[in-house]
């Protein structure tokens, strides 16, 4: 049992389900959005009793959905033969192929921070929360990565 009074999980689902689906569509495209939401809701349910407070539950569901979308994307990439990637990438809602290629040389943690900032459009608080670092560290991580990328881009 939890020590904080969390609302019944389904009250959250009924209040925010539609916007989570829209969020998943933006991240993963129409084709994968429902799978992403389904996975996200199960992940959220697994973690739910361990939450230490009942604040910002909507933002938390957005983060869980974002993570589910990223993981689904990675899983799909692993399944694809490499020469098929460009064809598939054209179906996506944004040019993630180009974005991923651009950030590919960067360390894993930095790439995750950049995706959270520019793909999921999280603020630094949100990125900090997701990565378990401070907001200041999140901002530094993103801005130094941008500097690095600028230096590498052909003039």
């Amino acid at each position: 049992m939890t020590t904080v009074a969390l609302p019944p999980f389904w009250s959250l689902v009924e209040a925010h389900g539609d916007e989570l689906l829209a969020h998943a569509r933006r991240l993963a495209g129409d084709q994968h959005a429902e799978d992403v939401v389904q996975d996200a809701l199960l992940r959220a349910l697994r973690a739910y009793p361990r939450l230490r407070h009942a604040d910002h539950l909507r933002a938390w569901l957005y983060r869980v959905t974002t993570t589910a979308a990223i993981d689904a994307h990675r899983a799909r990439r692993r399944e694809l033969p490499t020469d098929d990637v460009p064809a598939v990438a054209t179906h996506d809602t944004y040019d993630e192929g180009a974005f991923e290629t651009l950030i590919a040389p960067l360390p894993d943690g930095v790439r995750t921070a950049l995706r959270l900032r520019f793909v999921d459009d999280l603020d630094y608080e949100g990125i900090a929360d997701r990565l378990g670092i401070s907001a200041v560290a999140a901002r530094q991580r993103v801005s130094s990565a941008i500097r690095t990328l600028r230096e590498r881009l052909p003039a």
Partner: protein
Amino acid sequence: MTPLPDSLLEAVASAAVREGLVDAVFTRLRTPIGRLLVVQGGHGIIRVGFEEEPEDHVLAEVAGHLGPRIVASDRELALTRDTLDAYFAGEGDPHSLPVDLTLVGAPFRRAVLEALHRDIAAGDVVTYGALAERAGNARAYRAAATACARNPVPIVVPCHRVLPSSGGIGRYGGGPERKRTLLELEGSLPTSR
């Protein structure tokens, strides 16, 4: 924005139940006495809410006792739904369904509702005094009346079958009109005016 499709919600709920991630499941049922919210935990039906009770309050009350992992699923509660549908169509008795009286704090009130659930089948009625006696204290008819008035599992624990010894149909947590409808359905509406 598009709401989540029912098929997706059912898939989430079923997967969650299979994985053991769920503290309680609820379903909404259309009946001749209005929409019912039926909430079921691992040990049985813990709460039945009439349509005028805010769903959030009912679910939060259950969450406070069983935990917050509450999901909706018509499919997972198919047996409960079928039993209640059949009852409202005039067949069978929902007191065959298991109940969980966790929400009843006072031991005597719980004993009253247990006796009622166990002993009083559709077609039977009982007075508050006789029910108090079945629960072990014949003089505690007022406590028996309170137990019925606050019954968290109406219909399934059939407090509508409890009548005042003075005649008439008496009071009901969901209002006397509902009590009349249920007694009529069971063919045990008192004829006296």
